[in-house]
């Protein structure tokens, strides 16, 4: 043995060897990459428990994500109803056709108004005679009882409840107008409900994000406990805290990623399951496009993936900073 080592005598130095700065800099990234896959490898060694944890995370993430998707579509649905968001102006009987055309031009210039449609009283009567089934009875009338009607479509920038109310007040002041009609209450109620639902989803989302943090934190705590002796050895041979922390942080990241992938899967499956009965409902409204959820959008999916990964990393970080200090060589 002594003979063996004397052959390598000239290689041994008194100073401890240090890698060059550029080597350390480069190795830093290579190690990150290695730990990235190493931590994935560790998880794949226990596929069942990894899957269980990821599924728990997936369900916790899927609930707020799914609700968000539905709410998002509900908002779009109310957007579709904007076309119904029209104001009917019934003119006074004595207003002439010329005056109405002038008014129509005037209203068209309003920034709040996208379009004004004139329904002539004579045409309206004719249509009513043809379609209502009271044709003969109406012919018996000497005068046309119907007033001229202007239908005002508010512009897209002004179809929130408040600006519409202001527009409504303005229109009521017009001297030619007899009656202004808009059923706005249902719209206000819908907006109010959406606001409540948004708040509710925010609360549920925050609680479940907390649950995700706790699940990952606990999983990482167990992983740290399992590797206690390894951590002691690492510390003894001079590993820094960040070196020891790194694989656990990546493990948290992977859990978050898998959890959010499962969540995306669950949400899309649920949407697919709802889509058929929804199409049926739409067909009852004679509008097959009215209620359609489709799949989760790419932006929502990416946001879910990102928040899953961040939550995973954060949960691991919390667990590691709490438990790593307790493990010291004895």
């Amino acid at each position, binding site marked *: *043995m002594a003979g063996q*080592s*004397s052959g*390598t*005598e000239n290689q041994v*130095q008194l100073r401890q060897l240090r890698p060059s700065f550029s080597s*350390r800099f480069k190795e830093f990234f290579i*190690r990150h990459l290695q730990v990235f896959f190493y931590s994935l490898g560790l998880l794949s060694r226990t596929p069942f428990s990894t899957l269980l944890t990821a599924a728990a995370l997936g369900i916790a993430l899927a609930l707020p994500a799914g609700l968000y998707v539905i709410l998002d579509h509900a908002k779009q649905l109310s957007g579709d109803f904007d076309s119904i968001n029209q104001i009917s102006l019934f003119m006074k009987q004595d207003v002439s056709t010329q005056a109405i055309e002038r008014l129509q031009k005037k209203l068209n210039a309003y920034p709040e108004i996208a379009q004004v449609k004139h329904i002539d009283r004579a045409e309206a009567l004719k249509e009513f005679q043809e379609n209502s089934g009271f044709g003969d009875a109406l012919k018996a009338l000497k005068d046309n009882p119907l007033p001229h009607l202007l239908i005002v479509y508010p512009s897209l920038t002004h179809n929130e409840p408040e600006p519409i109310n202001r527009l409504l007040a303005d229109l009521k002041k017009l001297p030619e107008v007899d009656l202004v009609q808009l059923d706005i209450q249902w719209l206000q109620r819908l907006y109010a409900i959406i606001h409540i639902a948004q708040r509710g989803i925010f609360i549920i989302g925050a609680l479940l994000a907390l649950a995700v943090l706790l699940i990952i934190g606990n999983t990482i705590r167990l992983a740290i406990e399992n590797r206690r002796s390894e951590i002691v050895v690492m510390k003894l*041979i001079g590993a820094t805290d960040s070196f020891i922390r790194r694989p656990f942080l990546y493990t948290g990241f992977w859990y978050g990623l898998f959890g959010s992938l499962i969540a995306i899967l669950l949400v899309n499956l649920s949407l697919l399951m709802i889509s058929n009965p929804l199409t049926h409902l739409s067909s009852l409204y004679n509008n097959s496009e009215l209620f359609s959820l489709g799949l989760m959008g790419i932006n929502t999916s990416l946001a879910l993936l990102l928040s899953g990964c961040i939550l995973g990393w954060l949960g691991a970080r919390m667990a590691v900073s709490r438990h790593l200090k307790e493990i010291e060589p004895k």
Partner: protein
Amino acid sequence: MILFDQVSKRYPGGNEALSNVNFHLRQGEMAFLTGHSGAGKSTLLKLIALIERATTGNVIIGGKNLHKVSRHTLPYLRRNMGIIFQDYQLLYDRTVFDNVALPLIISGFSSREVKKRVHAALDKVGLLRYEKKYPVTLSGGEQQRVSIARAVVNKPALLLADEPTGNLDPDLSLEIMDLFMAFNQVGVTVLIATHDIPLINQLDKRIVHLEHGQLLTAEEN
């Protein structure tokens, strides 16, 4: 290299493991630390490795007062010493190669360097052929040699060993001691705690004797 200046260590509960120890080990020196179980051998090594901190007095390693070493800089100090344990402290889910490579990976050596140096270290302890094996498949003496390879792979200036031959038979023990002697010959400072008096009497090295936490012999040869 190692300087103990009036060092005492009292554990919580009042048990004084070391009392007023003065001790100097020069660079390139090799010494054995002996004494009965509980005499304070392990405590002395733990103070050097910063596993424990002195209650009073100063421990100075390579010119650095360990009082001034923070939690943050401690890992970098430990990289200057190779530590060897009675129970080897290997990682059993990794191969011999990966175990020995660990200190180099922690320091940030490139894969090529790591491979070269691990091979050199394993060659020195005569275990190059086992690099792909797992530690459990090796005998106690072989596992201890793996842990020695790990301790010397980054060529530290100081080697510490706590009962390195405690689990080994006399022949294997002598082999391990020969290994330490060889590292000492090329300039490494070596401090070994052991109670194997017959073994170290065969070797012509300085012997430091501890009894009830006090240094009895500190003569330098």
